[in-house]
């Protein structure tokens, strides 16, 4: 069945609500309205306002009450309406959700799923286009994932809800309307693991690692490069915490060149961690230093100029050229 990414998430939520009576949804405007992106469309009607809960506008309380529900054995799925709205809930996520299992030496589980539409490219005002994933990747006790396509959105959401660990589920909102074939009945037992990265385009010259909204861009870059005879291997990380390094290492050991791209700012972003780890573990295979193609270390810019902040096909290819030492690449990055 062909589904958009929003429809796939909706189907995943529906399936979870059907399968497990302890699954409850909490969020702002998720019930009657069906969510500002219509991700939860129809769920309140079908499952009732006691399971699809329109909450007052307080993110700390959405997370904090979900902690209490989890204490009671529920499996809450929280929606944070936009990436930039998550910070009022940050303390509850970092100090409680992430730590309670360890704090109680395993007695209390926090099987929360926190859904966060993230990233730019939709022409929104401030606070609606951010990429805050690194904060959560840096926090032990959390799992962080980001699907790039409808099938993964469906499967990984079901895995996240089934996980006994808390999961931050970052939805690439600018890909919400991308449609693709989704197998709704494929058993989870045969699906790729939630924490597994995946090679989405095979290649031999450069390893290009990305996740979420930029996987589509990376694939397009690989196609464009192929026209010039450059073979890019694209890896969709899927899981940001933990990062599945095995396919990345395997690829880099063949290509000797690594490019990492994400919308989030560069400093201490995922690219920094991946570059450091691959340098530690594959140093003797690298032909050149890893290259990062990322957003800048700036507050998210106004939408008329966001295209200058967001890595696009050309900037990714410029990074690939740098990794290949091609003469037309942007120079001076080593200064």
């Amino acid at each position, binding site marked *: 069945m062909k589904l958009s990414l929003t429809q796939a998430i909706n189907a995943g939520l529906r399936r979870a609500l059907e399968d497990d009576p302890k699954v409850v949804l909490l969020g702002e405007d998720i019930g009657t309205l069906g969510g500002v992106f219509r991700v939860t469309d129809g769920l309140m009607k079908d499952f009732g306002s006691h399971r699809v809960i329109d*909450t*007052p506008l307080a993110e700390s309380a959405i997370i*904090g*009450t979900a902690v*209490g529900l989890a*204490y009671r054995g529920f499996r809450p799925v929280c929606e944070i309406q936009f990436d930039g709205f998550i910070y009022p809930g940050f303390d509850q996520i970092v100090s409680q959700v992430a730590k309670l299992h360890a704090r109680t030496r395993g007695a*209390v589980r926090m099987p929360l799923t926190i859904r966060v539409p993230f990233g730019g490219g939709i022409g929104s005002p401030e606070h609606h286009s951010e990429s805050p994933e690194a904060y959560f990747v840096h926090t*032990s006790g959390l799992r962080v994932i980001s699907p790039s396509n409808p099938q993964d959105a469906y499967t990984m959401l079901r895995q996240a809800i089934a996980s006994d*660990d808390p999961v931050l589920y970052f939805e690439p909102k600018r890909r919400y309307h991308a449609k693709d074939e989704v197998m709704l009945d494929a058993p989870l037992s045969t699906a790729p693991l939630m924490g597994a990265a995946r090679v989405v385009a095979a290649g031999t010259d450069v390893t290009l690692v990305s996740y979420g909204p930029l996987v589509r861009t990376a694939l397009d870059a690989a196609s464009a490069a192929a026209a010039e005879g450059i073979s890019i291997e694209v890896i969709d990380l899927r899981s940001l915490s933990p990062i599945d390094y095995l396919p990345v290492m395997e690829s880099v050991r063949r290509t000797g060149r690594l490019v990492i791209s994400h919308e989030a700012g560069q400093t201490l972003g995922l690219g920094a961690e991946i570059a450091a780890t691959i340098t530690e573990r594959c140093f003797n295979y690298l032909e050149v230093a890893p290259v990062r193609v990322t957003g800048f270390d700036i507050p998210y810019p106004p939408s008329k100029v966001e295209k200058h902040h967001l890595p696009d096909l050309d900037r990714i290819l410029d990074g690939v050229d740098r990794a290949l030492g091609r003469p037309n690449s942007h120079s001076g990055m080593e200064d």
Partner: protein
Amino acid sequence: MAHSAMPLHQLVTASGTRVADELLDEFVSDLDDQTLRNLYEDMLIVRRIDAEATALQRQGQLALWPPLLGQEASQIGSVRALEHDDFIFPTYRENGVAYCRGASMGSVLGVWRGVSNSGWDPYELNMATPQIIIGSQTLHATGYAMGLVLDGKESLSLAYFGDGATSQGDVHEAMVFAASFQAPVVFFCQNNHWAISEPVGLQSHVPLAGRAPGYGIPSLQVDGNDVLAVLAATRWAAHRARTGGGPSFIEAVTYRMGAHTTADDPTRYRGVTELEEWGAKDPLTRMRTFLTNAGKLDDEAESAMAAKADAVAAELRAACINFPDPEPLSVFEHVYVDDHPILARQRDHYLAYLSLFEGSSPAAQGGAS
């Protein structure tokens, strides 16, 4: 801060006289003499626990201890109003509550000894692990209570917090959610007048209990040094919660006679007059006077209580001193439920590193000093 804007409910005065209270009387009408004596015994034991733990900190056996001296009635009165099924979300100071829930002394002390980040199994005691982040647990209690409604249970959750916590956004958000969803949660605020060095007047210009009605939550102010009144007030709130009445807010007006923790020096911010004033309202003294005058407490009963307190204190001291240090690799445990390859790798590397020290003196066996 003036509390005159709200009536302060009381059943036993500071001098030990039983007085009538229109709202609260019916909630203690069933208490027999033994129950009354038990309330006093609880307070006596909890005060002894507190003194023993404070001494252990002074002797270097505990890293820190948060004394509850002066707050015994607030803690005992409230916890004794609850059923076992009711779920408690405490702060780090509710060690008297933990005792009444049946926590072992070792499980109370582990955090303060520095061997663990929590003690008891929350599901055994129906009491969450104590919260250090101020006010955070009020949201957890509210969520738990929302879950009780979803499960169709006639039970409740109770959140303990202090006067300082009432300034936290989480506490206000908790009241918003509790009111919206009519969650059966009791907000039990111990106004002990001090948030470390900050007086309650810095947190609020109105009585703390006066805030709750603004959220649509009925509240009352009770003499927090009057164990009978606290018990009655909590029963009032619990009854509301169990009968579909939704959330309630109790402000127990009490006083932190000791320091914030053993690392604190209250002489820097408060005077002796205040201490003397509150010393005259001591919760144990008044209950003892009340019981003795009513002929409900004799020397024999008192010495039995003292012996029990001694035994608990001995158990506490032994548990503290006999704590084994945790195994080095235990720091990697329970961070995740499921496998985590990156953490597993760090653990393996640290294990390999530690093995370099095998056979050398314990002092040199790894770990930062």
